[in-house]
């Protein structure tokens, strides 16, 4: 199974999860899946294109980016859970109507 297509499939799964999962925790997990997809793509293509150190460096930087995203996202999740007493995305509609 070619890793490039696996990456595409992962992206689809992650995107669909972001769109349809109701719980913020599951949405954040889906976002991680989505971030994993380009990472895998980078690595798979880098292996083919003789990237070497450049590919690995970019990968590391992407990891950092993803880690920062996860930290901020989870912090927001905790905040929302505390203030609104829910972690469900569809119960947060009032934010949009105010």
């Amino acid at each position, binding site marked *: 199974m070619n*890793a490039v297509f*696996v990456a595409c499939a*992962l992206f689809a799964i992650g995107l669909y999860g972001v769109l349809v999962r109701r719980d913020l925790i599951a949405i954040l997990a889906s976002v991680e899946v989505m971030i994993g997809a380009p990472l895998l793509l980078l690595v798979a293509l880098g292996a083919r294109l003789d990237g070497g150190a450049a590919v690995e460096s970019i990968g590391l930087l992407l990891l950092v980016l993803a880690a920062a995203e996860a930290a901020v996202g989870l912090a927001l999740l905790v905040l929302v859970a505390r203030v609104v007493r829910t972690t469900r995305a569809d119960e947060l509609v009032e934010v949009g109507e105010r």
Partner: protein
Amino acid sequence: MSMTVLMWALAAMTLLGAADVLLTRDVMRLGLGLGTFLLGLAGYFAAFGFGLLALAEVFVYVGGVLVLVIFAVMLVHRERSGVPRLESRHDPLAAVAAVGIAALLGAALRPLAALDLGGVATGVDAVGAHLLGARLAHFELAGLLLLAALVAVVSVSGVERR
């Protein structure tokens, strides 16, 4: 041959993990699925010869992010009785959009996917030199980003104390 088997195994691992993240209704299984997915990803990195990246993936994610996730789960549901079910609102339009985007990406990337694997020459020295040399600006930016994220997390979490 063994490479092909490895690729299939890694594909199965990541996809199943991702599918579990997508479909499960149990928080703990969600964490487990995510861990499986991330480990599969790390396996990919290693299989393609990026050992350092694989290591970082395992440390940062499987160690850090997963702990963080479980921590968040416990924090979130601290006051509730029992573990909530995770629900989905399955939507054909979203499915079409996701599959469509993925299919188009796949179609666009097919020529690249057909290329043969080239030689991968890496080492921690080379990566370090690259990061502190050609990519120094990016490296510093990434550090700045992490700092900003740290401040943001503290600031957002600090609301409780007010």
